[in-house]
């Protein structure tokens, strides 16, 4: 199967890192992730799950494993069409988000984003854009890799606690995810 290029925003990249299984997920789905110079410089932090006293701490994380494995590439906005789309999007949303919308829209690539405002703007600008969520990736990867039971629950728990992930309203996979967390 051919590798599929997708644009991923900074928040979803963080979610992937929070699972602790980011390389396996991307490899299983045969994805090639693209981000932008605007997002690649963002500092990223995850949290530890609560310890026995309920205390949590913050720790820095990075995309080094994804980049080192050739699964994540930064694509510059280096054509007039990309720059024009970026400026239009940036009039409505922060540069990091705007750059992903522009890259996905102009290149005709799917956009991995959970953010409601970013998704709305992407649809306004590029009505045919394909939008993918974090839970879409996790769900598909779990099926391909045969993750289930405690292993899958552990990944969902990592996403919940390390990334402080909260499911997007009306995400069709919200109930599935809540079930993994035992809710």
């Amino acid at each position: 199967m051919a590798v599929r290029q997708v644009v991923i925003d900074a928040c979803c990249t963080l979610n992937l890192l929070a699972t602790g299984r980011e390389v396996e997920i991307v490899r299983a789905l045969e994805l090639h992730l693209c981000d932008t110079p605007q997002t690649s410089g963002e500092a990223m932090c995850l949290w530890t799950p609560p310890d026995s006293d309920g205390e949590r701490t913050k720790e820095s994380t990075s995309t080094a494993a994804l980049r080192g494995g050739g699964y994540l590439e930064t694509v510059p906005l280096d054509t007039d069409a990309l720059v024009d789309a970026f400026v239009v999007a940036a009039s409505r949303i922060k540069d990091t988000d705007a750059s992903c919308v522009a890259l996905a829209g102009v290149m005709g690539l799917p956009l991995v984003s959970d953010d409601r405002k970013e998704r709305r703007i992407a649809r306004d600008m590029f009505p045919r854009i394909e939008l993918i969520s974090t839970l879409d990736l996790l769900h598909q990867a779990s099926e391909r890799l045969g993750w289930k039971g405690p292993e899958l629950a552990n990944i969902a728990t990592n996403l919940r606690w390390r990334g402080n992930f909260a499911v997007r309203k009306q995400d069709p996979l919200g109930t599935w995810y809540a079930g993994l967390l035992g809710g």
Partner: protein
Amino acid sequence: MISSQRLGERLSDARKRAGLTQAQMAERLGLARTTIVAMEKGERRPSNVELVKFAEVSGSSVHDLIRDGLVRTEVSPRFRIALTEREQPAVAEAVERLRVLGGRYVELERLHKLHRARAPLETLQTYAQDGSTSPNSDPRLEGEDAARTVRAMLGMGDEPAMNIDERFESEAGLRIFYLDHLPSKLAAFLIWTDEIGACVAINRAHPVERQRWSLAHEVGHFLRDREAGDVLEQDDSLSQPGEVFPEAFAKEFLLPRTGVQKRFAERCRGGKFTPIDLHALAKTFGVSFHAMALRLEELRLLPRGSYDKIVQGGLRPQGLGKSDEIPASRRGLRLGLPDRYVALAVSAYDEELLSESEFAEVLATDVATARVVHQQTHQIQLDDGTQLAVTFTGADLRTA
């Protein structure tokens, strides 16, 4: 799309903040200086490629250059002159952080279509330096009088001043932020701009008693000379003429003469007044042991030199127990932001007025931490201890 003129103003602001001349900016963009001049005057709109490059070179974001609703703020020129004299780049950097936070506060209000009405203390002009005060009046007496007036306006009588952040936010319209990474000598500062009003930054590394004193001191400046702004350093001397009024205000506001006398008398009923009583009194009024001791000496409730004698006698104030840390309402994740500011940001995110990364930027933190803030803000504890998840909106409950 914003007008070319407004875009030009923002380009000019961004270039100046980056410390670049028009010639330097022109060179970096590969344009003529006259082109930069025309862009900043709004006579020539930059192409999208030029705009992106301009943002990159100036360290600004394209979003901040072109979006609707950006609050353009300029700190008082008098303040800037004072800063230049002090040659304190660290203070200048902190002032810039406060300016940005103040601007964001106003933007959040505007996103929710809230318009700030003038707060009661903003209209109090009696103590303004350029107002009706006599040049011969004593600033110390005036500061004390102002404190009594403000206490009366806030209905505080001579009781210890609690929750002063909330009081000053609502009654004075102050925007109060607790900032990290300030130089340790810097206790607080106040800036004023027409667009955002008065913003106060307090050094988060300082003990809470010191923070309260610093805030009260800055409120003194707010009443006296808010448009000039102020930088309060820890070793600021009372002998500086401009500091007498705010320092007297802070002292009388936090340690009101009659309130202190009353509480002192209560403590003396057992026949003795010990350092333990002094410590307890300091805790009651939310001031340091040192400040409490000096106030009692000043009011002649203790003999002069009592504090020195206590310290020389080997009783270290720090040994009496740690002071309380940040008040509960600010504990949380300790972002140092006003509760109302956070609530407005959460609501804006919920209503899709902000993206998640914008939400994190407004909170001046990372995305994962912003998510915790978001989740915590939606949890309220009921009287029976149960946690309830709720959604807050900017809807006017009176018309619901």
